[in-house]
């Protein structure tokens, strides 16, 4: 046994069984020294997970670093049938949430590459869900997006992770998915297209990535979180374009409540889309012309759209 070898190296070169045996030998020799190996900065969460029962059985917890203690407590909480209050940690109530976030990020960052088993995947997916749902830190979005695509690549369930991902209610969460439209992997492109299915016209476009970028730029100020749910329909539409806001050039809020005037509300979906798109293009072209058009009654506005479209078709 070479005690100077890192636990990561032993796991990678000799496998899980050998790693467990190595740690048990270290514990028999000197618990503190064994803990020092576990507390190594370069340790991954997957290795900690593999050794968690050895740690528990040998009473090693008290020698662990705070990162490892918190990670094992999170793991225990996620896998428990009934969750219970956790033991106090040496942090103030204001510092603890920040520390927990950093540990969750470490767990997902260093643990995503390994699959191990369904319980392990559950811990990783739930930890990612806590990051996006509770902490909602935009810097965690790319990390969770990578995990989402990895799960799909490996044919594992993406259901809860997709819901958690969009629970961030951050429209920029669409960007890492859009980037995957350029992936050399057909499976990733197909999954990205499935997640972005609510973007009308994307499926049929010749350059999906360019289409997505143009759509994102055009509609970002008018996006709203959608109420529907993955468990209610086969496809999730996390965000929708607020056509009224786009038509009137109003910025939307993060609230799912949308306000429309009564006349606009009664129009067909198609007409709402046409009005919103025309309004957007006109004001980009000429703000003066747009103001003039907006001053006209609705039926005159619709007439002008029809004339322009008719003219366009003739040409």
């Amino acid at each position, binding site marked *: 046994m070479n005690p100077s070898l890192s636990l990561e190296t032993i796991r990678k070169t000799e496998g899980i069984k050998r790693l467990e045996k190595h740690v048990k030998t270290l514990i028999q020799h000197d618990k503190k020294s064994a803990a020092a190996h576990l507390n190594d900065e370069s340790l991954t969460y997957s290795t900690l997970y593999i050794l968690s029962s050895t740690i528990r059985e040998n009473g090693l917890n008290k020698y662990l670093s705070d990162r490892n203690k918190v990670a094992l407590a999170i793991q225990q*909480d*996620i896998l428990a049938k009934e*969750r219970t209050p956790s033991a106090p940690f040496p942090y103030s109530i204001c510092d603890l949430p920040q520390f927990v976030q950093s540990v969750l990020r470490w767990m997902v960052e260093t643990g995503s590459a390994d699959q191990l088993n*369904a*319980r392990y*995947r*559950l811990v990783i997916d*739930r930890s990612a*869900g*806590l990051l996006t*749902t*509770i902490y909602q830190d935009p810097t965690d979005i790319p990390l969770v997006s990578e995990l989402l695509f990895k799960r799909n690549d*490996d*044919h*594992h*369930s*993406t*259901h*809860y992770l997709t*819901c*958690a991902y969009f*629970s961030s209610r951050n429209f920029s969460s669409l960007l890492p998915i859009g980037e995957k439209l350029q992936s050399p992997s057909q499976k990733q492109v197909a999954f990205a297209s499935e997640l972005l299915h609510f973007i009308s016209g994307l499926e049929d476009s010749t350059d999906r990535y360019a289409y997505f970028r143009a759509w994102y730029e055009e509609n970002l100020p008018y996006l709203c979180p959608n*109420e529907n*749910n*993955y*468990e*209610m*329909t*086969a496809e999730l539409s996390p965000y929708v374009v607020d056509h009224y806001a786009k038509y009137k050039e109003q910025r939307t809020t993060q609230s799912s409540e949308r306000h429309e005037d009564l006349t606009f509300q009664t129009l067909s979906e198609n007409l709402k889309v046409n009005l919103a798109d025309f309004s957007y293009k006109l004001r980009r072209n000429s703000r003066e012309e747009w103001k003039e058009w907006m001053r006209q009654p609705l039926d005159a506005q619709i007439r002008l759209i029809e004339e322009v479209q008719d003219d366009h078709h003739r040409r």
Partner: protein
Amino acid sequence: MIIIGGSQKKKEEIMNAGLQSPLEQTILTVMYDSHFNYSFRTFDALFFEVRFRVAIIDSSRELYYSGVQFADFYRSRCNPMFWKLFPDGAFQLKMGVPASEAILDIYRNGRQYAFECATAMIIILYRATIKMVPPEQFNRLFANIRLWGWKFDQDLQIVHNVPPDYLPGDIRYVKNPDVNPLTPEWQGENVVDLGDGTFFGHGLGFRSLEGMIEALALRRRPGATRMPYLMVPATRPGFSYLYQFTLPRSEENRRIILFDESLKRSTLSVEDYETNQSEWIKNYITVRFPIP
């Protein structure tokens, strides 16, 4: 109101034609008292929908008593004699197994199965379809079933929209917007409207709407501010589409296919078509004869 073959019918006339149970009558009353025109080509087509709705309710109760358990997709399980369990928690019908037998096995050997609430709803719809459609037709239509949430077989022709009326047998959704991220399987509950003021939800059992809301509220995150609520849309199978499979095969081959304005497909016997041809042509965009 209820329109049969183009003309409005009296409630008594319909009742006398064959609807008897209190639940069937409740469904009929909602349709009859509605401002919406519930249009059917024949009495049989109306009775099919009403009885299908009752079958959905019966199948919900039977599922509850079968002993199946609630589980998220990580912990789903099924009888390997009939189904292959996929890593994403989906159940795929095994080659050579009749789909009707595999669905019935869930009800016979419930303790071997565990799944989520959306999968439960699809299973209920399949079980109800078996009650309404001959097994050979069912096995032909659903020869390659995969059970996983709402990723349904297209041949159920599921409709998900805001209906003119809510009817017993509808599937509704109680959303839990502030669900605890550690238990995302409780982000909402698909429930069957049992027609007596109660609902069935897999994992929560039989409860009033308030009971469902209360149960989901317990699964919210600490500090949650939003209560669970019943969403407006309802989900139903394509009753008129499935109706055609109740008819004998030889007759089915002689049917006319109609498409309405929303391109929804339905069928009609040649005899019915010929007696009122001008009316059908006026009301439907396309009338197409099937390939013999």
